[in-house]
């Protein structure tokens, strides 16, 4: 648009248009005002408050807030108990690869003409619709000794494989990460399916005429065609695995070595009433997520997808 403006000689521009143009300059802001107002009130002001709190020692209630400078940040980085909990995120991060693989597999299969495909789409998306608290409770019963999982294992002759799924510290995080995969596969699946369906059908037809197998089609058409969505899924997976909260919070309360960074921040804020320190933890988490996203964008440049 700017190029067309430049091409037009300035002298030719009709004089009366000028006030209109000036009016048009603030008109977009008028339309944006409600959205901007909401965005600033509910996103940027609270984030600003959080940053402000993070430099203070405050219990969330007292009328006075004592400024403590960088003490809260120093504590988050130097006290092992605060940064160790990040290691728990690795379980969820590894699990997110399984999640993306499963979602991609089903998205590809169900984008071809499969029998009952709409039914299967519904079944796969369903877990994502469930409330996270409900998922937590359902899986709590599933993982109980002699609960659903143990019963099923016994039916299929794997009775000797039963264990305390949440009580055994070697398994607990894997059980919780599995719950997370169950819950969020539906979301990745829908994203992939949407992207796959936006690939024009003629390309498949052309590929079929050229003698490409299904595998070739997947590898040379579908995967490049949805690369941006796959990249987005990884960003979501990393930020999601750093900020896991409700599944461990509901199912174990962070006990038995399943405390994630956000559960730790929650306890700091509301069990120990250290809002300042917890805000510092939240700021650190925000910065890490921003950093990871930035690195990701540098490694996988956001280039235009072209199938021709």
């Amino acid at each position, binding site marked *: 648009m700017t190029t067309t403006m430049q091409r037009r000689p300035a002298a030719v521009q009709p004089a009366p248009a000028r006030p209109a143009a000036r009016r048009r300059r603030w008109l977009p802001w008028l339309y944006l005002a409600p959205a901007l107002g909401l965005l600033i009130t509910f996103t940027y002001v*609270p984030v600003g*408050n*959080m940053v402000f*709190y993070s430099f203070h020692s405050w*219990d*969330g*209630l*007292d*009328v006075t807030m004592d400024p403590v400078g960088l003490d809260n940040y120093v504590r988050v980085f130097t006290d092992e*108990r605060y940064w160790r909990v990040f290691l728990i995120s690795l379980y969820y991060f590894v699990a997110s690869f399984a999640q993306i693989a499963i979602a991609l597999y089903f998205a590809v299969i169900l984008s071809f003409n499969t029998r009952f495909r709409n039914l299967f789409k519904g079944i796969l998306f369903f877990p994502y619709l469930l409330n996270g608290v409900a998922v937590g409770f359902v899986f*709590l019963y599933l*993982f*109980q*000794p002699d*609960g659903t999982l143990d019963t099923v294992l016994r039916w299929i002759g794997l009775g000797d494989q039963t264990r*305390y799924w*949440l*009580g*055994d*510290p070697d398994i*607990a995080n894997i059980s919780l990460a599995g719950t997370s995969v169950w819950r969020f596969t539906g979301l990745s699946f829908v994203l992939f399916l949407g992207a796959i369906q936006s690939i024009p059908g003629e390309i498949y037809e052309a590929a079929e005429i050229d003698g490409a197998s299904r595998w070739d089609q997947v590898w040379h058409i579908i995967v490049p065609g949805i690369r941006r969505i796959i990249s987005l899924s990884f960003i979501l997976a990393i930020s999601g695995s750093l900020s896991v*909260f409700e599944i461990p919070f509901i199912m*174990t*309360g*962070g*006990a*038995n*070595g399943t405390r994630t960074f956000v559960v730790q921040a*929650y*306890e*700091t*804020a*509301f*069990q*120990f*009433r*250290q*809002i300042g320190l917890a*805000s510092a933890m939240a700021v650190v988490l925000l910065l890490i997520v921003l950093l990871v996203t930035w690195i990701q964008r540098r490694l996988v440049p956001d280039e235009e997808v072209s199938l021709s």
Partner: protein
Amino acid sequence: MADRRTFLGFGAAAVLVLATGCTGGATEEAPTGDFAGDVKGNITVLTNRTDLATTALPEYAKKFEAKYPGTKVSFEAVTNYEGDVTTQLSSGEYGDVLLIPNTVAVDQLGQFFEPLGTVDELKTKYRFVDEKAYDGKVYGLSLGGVANGFVVNKRVWEQAGITAPPKTTEEFLAGLKAIDTKTEAIPFYTNYKDGWPLSFFNSQRAILGDPNANERFPTDANPWQPGKIQHITDGLLFDIVHNKLSEPDPLTTNWEGSKPMMGTGKVATMLLGSWAVPQMKDAAKAANANPDDIVFWPFPYQTGGKFHARIEGDYKAAVSKTSENKATAKAWLEWFVNESGFAADQQAIPSAVGQELPAVLKDFEATGVELMELPAATTNSGKEDEIIKASEIDLAGNIYRQKLVDIARGAAKGDKESYFAELNKRWSAAQSQVMQ
């Protein structure tokens, strides 16, 4: 009182962080607030008893309104009491009479509540007045008190050959072992997953028989040293779990589910407050078991040849500083504590001095236990909370005790000595900072 779960809502928490408005709080100089005016008009009472808000509580209100014509009491039941009311406090709108949330530190009481009188003066009329007091001024009256000890299924213990409360922790452990070998029952149930039942290991400070225990506690840099209170109580928890005398998978326990287990004798022992006894008896009745099997025993430790058990007030009710009808609010509060009969109806210790103990506690006293009130710290007031915050050892909670259970059952690294050493180290670091 029935369910002491403090399940703070995350949504409420977000609102709390957003809340920018704060109530102004110039500290009051007078020993009592301004309660001038007639007892007339409407008041709103916040309650955590969602189960009673539309049944029993309006019945009490009717009697109050009959005594003071022209008044009207309405109730606002808050499901998630601690979290929601903490948020409401910052907004300035929190009813006329409410229970003081535990999130309010003692030195902040004057910011939100009206002082009801001095400790010295009210002590003669009510129990537990010092528990929500600051600077000699009382801000809340207890609606009923509880004793601390073990809820046990007597029948199961008798099957294992024990009929009287064990006198030492060794005897107690031997008793649990006998239950393990001679019966089908789980000897001790920790309720690890829900967490809050573990906090009752903090309510046994009276066993040393020292009325100054709360004053002295923050002066001790190493409470987990052998012979000291935390070593006795937390050590017992460790030994119970380490000897596999507790439930096999602690991560899948369930408070509601544990009540019928206790009632029917599938579980022999739990450490709780006396308030749990009527609930367990009800569960036993519902499961066609004998409710008389459920009794209350003291913590297995004697000082001077005597059991001691701490009695303490449950939530304290206070008059809101922002109330526009403080005269009526105070009248309701005093009537509710003195005349309503609420505590007796709830099998709790009445907070008005001189009123009779409920049946559960009379039986408890008959086991030879001395009921002790532990006055709150005055010179070291609030110090213990500060140390807890700074060290992040939630003495009154469950986080570090869950870790203790994990270590005891071999699910986390360490042993009793190493963990107690770590706790001592963290505690004394914070303690030296707070106590200077």
